[in-house]
């Protein structure tokens, strides 16, 4: 079942077409990667989902129903450009933002304190935001994004500004949120995290969808039948490694075992990074 469906959404600013007939389907409890170069229209699409801007045409369905202002409480959004009120105390501010998402003050207070303990930042509650480092502020922002237990989470470059240890912490949190039932839309340029986390992706460029599917299928589609082969020749001259292209791996293996002892035989799948660069640069031509 799809939790989020975007059907034929288009948006223009003046004469500039920012989104052209975009459709995606995001299955429930999956992580969906929204990929594309800068200026591709990702932010506009995300703003449409957050009802910050309205599409010129097309429809967004959330859990089968058209998106309505009441859905705000169902969505958690961590924007790429994010910030907090510098002069406000951390706890107070987190409660304020949770309240804006429709949470009750007491409930927000309770849950926030639990999260603060979980992230090891309980003693920052009464500190002013300006006293925190950037990484610390990012943690607070992440908590604020998920505090109202939204069913749809939108993360725009969630890992920027985090050190590797905290990136790991965050990845685990994101996976845990998905396992608990959230559907996650994930926009990033960091292709390794896409491979690690995303079930499905969409690649857009200049407002057009140029690729869509599961990470596995896409890799299969873009593979160029090359194999990484390691074998020990019979003539006794140590292990040899080479890359072979072949549409018939059985034949390739047969050739190799005639010459020596096969050590390993792996298909080389293209990385998401390569697919991204190839597709975007060819669609720019």
């Amino acid at each position, binding site marked *: 079942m799809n939790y989020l469906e975007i059907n034929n959404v288009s948006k223009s600013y003046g004469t500039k077409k920012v989104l052209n007939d975009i459709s995606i389907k995001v299955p429930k409890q999956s992580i969906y990667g929204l990929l594309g170069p800068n200026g591709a229209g990702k932010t506009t699409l995300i*703003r449409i989902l*957050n*009802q*910050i801007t309205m599409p010129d045409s097309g429809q967004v369905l959330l859990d089968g129903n058209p998106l309505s202002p009441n859905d*705000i409480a169902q*969505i958690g*959004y*961590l*924007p790429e*450009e*994010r*910030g*907090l*009120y*510098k*002069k*406000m105390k951390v706890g107070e501010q987190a409660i*304020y*933002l949770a*309240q*804006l*998402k*429709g949470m009750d003050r007491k409930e927000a207070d309770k849950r926030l304190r639990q999260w603060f303990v979980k992230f090891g930042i309980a003693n920052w509650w009464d500190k002013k935001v300006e006293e925190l480092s950037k990484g610390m502020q990012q943690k607070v*922002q992440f908590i*604020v994004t998920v505090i109202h237990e939204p069913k749809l989470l939108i993360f725009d470059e969630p890992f920027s500004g985090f050190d590797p240890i905290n990136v790991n912490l965050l990845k685990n949190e994101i996976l845990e949120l998905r396992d608990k039932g959230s559907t996650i839309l994930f926009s990033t340029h960091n292709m390794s995290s896409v491979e690690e986390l995303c079930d499905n992706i969409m690649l857009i460029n200049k407002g057009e969808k140029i690729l869509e599917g599961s990470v596995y299928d896409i890799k299969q589609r873009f593979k160029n039948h090359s194999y990484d082969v390691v074998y020990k020749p019979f003539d006794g001259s140590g292990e040899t490694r080479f890359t072979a292209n072949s549409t018939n791996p059985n034949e390739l293996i047969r050739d190799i075992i005639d010459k020596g002892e096969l050590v390993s035989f792996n298909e080389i799948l293209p990385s998401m990074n390569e697919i991204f660069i190839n597709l975007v640069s060819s669609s720019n031509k």
Partner: protein
Amino acid sequence: MKIGIIIEREYLTRVKKRSFLIITFLAPLFFAALMFLPAILMTNSEKFENKKVIAVCDESTLFNGKLENTDINTFIYIDKSIDEAKQLVKDGVYDGVLYIPGTKLTVPTNAELYSIKQQPMTLTSHIRSSMKQIVEHQKLMSSGIDPAIVKASATTINVQQIKMSEKEGGEQKSFSEFEFFLGLFLALIIYFVIFIFGNQVMRGVIEEKTNRIIEVIVSSVKPFELMMGKIIGIALVGLTQFLLWGVLTLAITGIASTFLPTQDVFSGGTVMSEQIAETGVNTTDPDTLTEVFEIIHSINFKDILWCFLLYFIGGYFLYSAMFAAIGAAVDNETDTQQFVTPISLLLVIPMVCSSIIATAPDSSFALWMSMIPFTSPVGMMLRIPFGVPIWQVVLSVALLFATFIVFTWLASKVYRTGILMYGKKVSWKEIFKWIKY
């Protein structure tokens, strides 16, 4: 209601600031000081001064023994040269020496007061008036006129201006000087508060934009709610401040007046003593005191207060909506100038013309100034103490509120587009384009 949460935050973060508390508590002290100081200085000045002994070195011999001694100033006539007298001042025998040089043919009109410390104005003015009296007396005597006749012929003429109204018995004494200053005072206050609080709105919007917290917030609330929440929250800060100022000023003046011996003077009359001092009326004069009471009673402070609040709210909302739009359109405070200046000018115009309006409050220029919504908050405040026909006030307030609704709507369109727009130098043309979106 989410707008309530926004109003609460905007209000509380500002009210809890140290600067708010300082201004709230210091300003009434300042106001009270403004009210009391002139009265205190005029009535009690002698208490603040030490007793002084002034040596008089009178070469003309005309003043010997004639200068009036007061509670604190004692004049001692010495038969020494001025240089010797100065030495005595240096030695600390006298606080000062008054040197009146001798003249052969005419009566002396000059005197010099030597002292180590700067002497108060009261002393020199006392000397001046004493000497003047003596010299005038002398002149009259030498012309063979009895000074008593001159004294008896002195007359003061009072011209009382009475405002007529169509109503029976609605005649009132009018005191245009007082009303002039009251109007100016109110106009200045409304001018400053609109700017101060409007500016706070603008800075708040810029803060949210540069902080980038805006994107998180507009994913939770509508930009219009955020803008209105901010404007209303800051308006409440302003109203709280006025209320506290009023209460504290009354409390401080109340407490202060019980501690001051000249209670009868303070029991109401001194509230306006500052203005009276400005208009050159002597507070200690009992006639003037009753006049002060009459002035106060002739002015309908309740109506003025209501008008002030209405025009503050209307003017503030109108200007702060525009300021919010500016804040949303720019990336930082330094870029605001090109937009703020023309808008400020609208409010500056009636302020610049304040004396024209207040001296002729019923002229057509004054009428226009108090009708046009951009100038009416200041324009009407200048006119209001003189009494303005009720239909004019109603029309002007209605125009002001209608304009603020239209402008809030326009501003919200600019705001909505502007807050999410970064890195773009915005021009007026661009802003008008946003309104059309």
